[in-house]
């Protein structure tokens, strides 16, 4: 699984990545993480507000930080 965290490096982006990593760990899923800070790349995903989470090239979360529980459901 390839997970991209989109955001300009704000506190929320860091929390989103943290929660996503924890969700993967709890699910026992192996995932490769990547940070995307280039705004034009974010725009190409259609993302308009940060932070966002892209899982296998699909935007799953935009403009908010879901809980670990919610992320677990999204990542299953």
């Amino acid at each position, binding site marked *: 699984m390839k997970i991209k965290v989109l955001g300009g490096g704000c506190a929320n982006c860091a929390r989103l990545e943290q929660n996503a990593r924890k969700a993967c760990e709890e699910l026992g899923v192996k995932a490769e993480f990547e940070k995307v800070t280039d*705004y034009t790349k974010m*725009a190409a995903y259609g*993302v*308009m*507000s*940060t932070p966002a989470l892209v899982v296998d090239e699909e935007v799953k979360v*935009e*403009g908010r930080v879901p809980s670990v529980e919610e992320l677990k459901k999204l990542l299953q």
Partner: protein
Amino acid sequence: MGLLEDFGAWVAFQLLNLEPGSALGEAVNFFVYDSLKVLLLLAAMVFLVGLMRTYVTPQRVKKWLGGRKEGVGNVLAALLGVPTPFCSCSAVPLFIGFVESGVPLGITFSFLISSPMVNEVAIALLLGLVGWEITVLYIVSGLAIAVVAGIAIGRMKLENEVEDFVYEIRSKEVKEKQMTARERIAFAKNEVKTIMKKVSLYVLLAIGVGAFIHGYVPVGFLAEIAGKNSFLAVPVAVMIGIPLYSNAAGTIPVVQALMAKGMALGTALAFMMSVTALSFPEMIILRKVLKPKLVAIFVGILFVSIVLVGLLFNAVIG
């Protein structure tokens, strides 16, 4: 608010045993009362707007604004800018998303102006500190500037002053997941946590400075240099507001105290608008998608309209 007033008085005159009527006693009383009132109001407002945000998402806004006509489109964009989150960090993807889905340039600018200027933090602070009349004036004139400036930019046909790559981006459609009620509330709570953490200290500091000004600066101190007959005060106030970017939380309490010492209403409004709407980081970030000429036009139009609104209020309201 009776309870909060009593608490402020209790802290100042009982707990700290200060003399009622003394400068220090009144300043402490004022500080405790105002900070509690403003922080409570701010948390409530951020929570409500946070809930609204789960319905008015940028993805939906761009669909509502796509292909709109001048006038109606600008008004709608300015109104939708109020509950939509705006931080300069997402200005670029937002701008690209709008342009790509066919939102006209002038309408995009109406949104980009109103979104940071008329925001929940500024509204809560104004409501809590200067009353609803001035809050309404601020909101209405902020929306009016966003509409008029957006129409002006739209009429200037500046589409070729947007960086070329913006028109080449073909983005994927984002399918938004329907949020449950519980997720909406969690989102709003998180907004309260994030925003309160970011602004509380500034609010307290600024109310502290305001309390000091209330207690120690003589009444009418600013009437001469920043009163309503001082023509130059408005543009100077707007210039001073630019480097204080987006820190409504840290400036409004001070402005409120300055108004009590004779700063004219129009000057104060223009100053607050400049703080929220005109900022260096935003200009630098917008430069990524706009050619320098359009950044200059955007800043110029905004500067002039804020100054005009300030002068207008100074001339009309005594």
